[in-house]
């Protein structure tokens, strides 16, 4: 599903290579400034790689950014509608899709509200709901659990487990080793922009390779 070869970006990422099969979950781990977010941005086309190449077989994918980059004056429903339009989702099925994703993250009664009325946990759930629109086969999640309170963290973890069980390929970054161990099939460790490990979760656990 994803193949990355010798990918570099400015002085932030240096020769990153990995591959990920369909339905698998990859955890990208590393300290702050290791290049996790930049790697996501390059793969998502927000930044252009300086050298190297990558291929993603899916054209429709979801993305959950590290912070709630949302227009706070917009309502949750309007936000989801714009994204459904952008994935060319049939008009007559949009309402049921909005209800489906909102229900999945427990925000079905908040659709009319503007984001400025949402708590941090609700904003994070909105982003996850947005990423689930149209049931994509691949979702990128940049630090999906950072800054959340324990109950929101558990809920987010639950959504990710559900997605994983549904065969969705996930790429997420995290600082928390316990989340990585619970969700990931494969691990990519970055340190100051360099790849220090890529392999299965079992190998990573055996090797005890810290970010």
């Amino acid at each position: 599903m994803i193949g990355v070869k010798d990918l570099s970006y400015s002085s932030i990422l240096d020769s990153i290579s990995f591959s990920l099969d369909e339905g698998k979950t990859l955890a990208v781990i590393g300290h702050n400034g290791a290049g996790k977010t930049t790697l996501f941005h390059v793969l998502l086309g927000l930044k252009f790689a300086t050298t190297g190449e990558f291929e993603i077989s899916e054209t429709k994918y979801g993305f959950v950014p590290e912070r709630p980059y949302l227009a706070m004056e917009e309502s949750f429903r309007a936000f989801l509608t714009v994204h459904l339009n952008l994935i060319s989702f049939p008009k007559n099925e949009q309402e049921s899709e909005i209800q489906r994703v909102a229900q999945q993250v427990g925000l079905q009664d908040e659709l009319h509200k503007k984001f400025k009325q949402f708590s941090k946990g609700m904003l994070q759930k909105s982003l996850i709901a947005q990423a689930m629109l149209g049931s994509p086969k691949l979702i990128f999640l940049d630090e999906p659990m950072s800054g959340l309170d324990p109950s929101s963290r558990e809920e987010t973890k639950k959504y990710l487990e559900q997605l994983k069980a549904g065969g969705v390929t996930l790429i997420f970054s995290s600082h928390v080793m316990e989340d990585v161990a619970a969700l990931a099939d494969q691990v990519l460790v970055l340190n100051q922009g360099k790849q220090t490990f890529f392999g299965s979760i079992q190998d990573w656990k055996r090797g005890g390779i810290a970010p």
Partner: protein
Amino acid sequence: MNYLSARIASHTFKSLLREKIIFNVFGVTILFLFFGYLASLLVYGRQDRVMMDMGQVLNALSIFAVALGIGARFLRQEIESKTIYLYLTRPISRSSFFLGRFIGMSSFAALNFVILTLILSAAIVLMNGNLSTAFLQSSILTFVEALILLAGALLFSFWLRPALVFMVMLAFIILGHNHQMIQSLQANPETQSPVFVGLTALTPNFSLFLMSDRVYYEQALSAHDFTNALLYGCVWLFFFLLLGNAVFSRKNL
């Protein structure tokens, strides 16, 4: 324009409708139009022409302010606040996104302009004035000028802060409306300078769009001259849009 550009355009238009600052410009202009009406009452004779003259200037200033205000801020703000990320990770090309944003902003500026022109037209008719062909031509050319300013502001907003974009575009307006004066300076051997050549080459000749005298005397442009002015405006518009799109398409966000 493809389907996705149309969706982005519609989203842009709706987002701009939420921006209260634009409505403030709108309100102030209507207030000025009212003052124009009051001023025309003080004039003996063709009061409608005074109203038309003042009204058109105010209308043009309003639409330029709106075009520069949204062009200098909207996309830049999206990039700075990173709200653009989620849109661009959808299967939409940057060119389609850029085009959609521009069309949405243009539509909003058009709505603003049409409403103000209708109010001005109603005021002129109520004062027993005549809505001449020259008035219509002038309105269209003013709007084309506003679109050029919008596209220019959008382009410069990738490098400059809104206040600086505003200043650069103000320079464009001043130089553009004084092309003939610059050309006459260049024609004079005593004042000739390569700077004048550069200034006329790098700024649109907005004096082609200036029709206030013609409107006042109801002298419409010939179809040929009007078409030429429109085509000239479109060339500058596409130049700014193509350049803006090229910069945006290669920008690391």
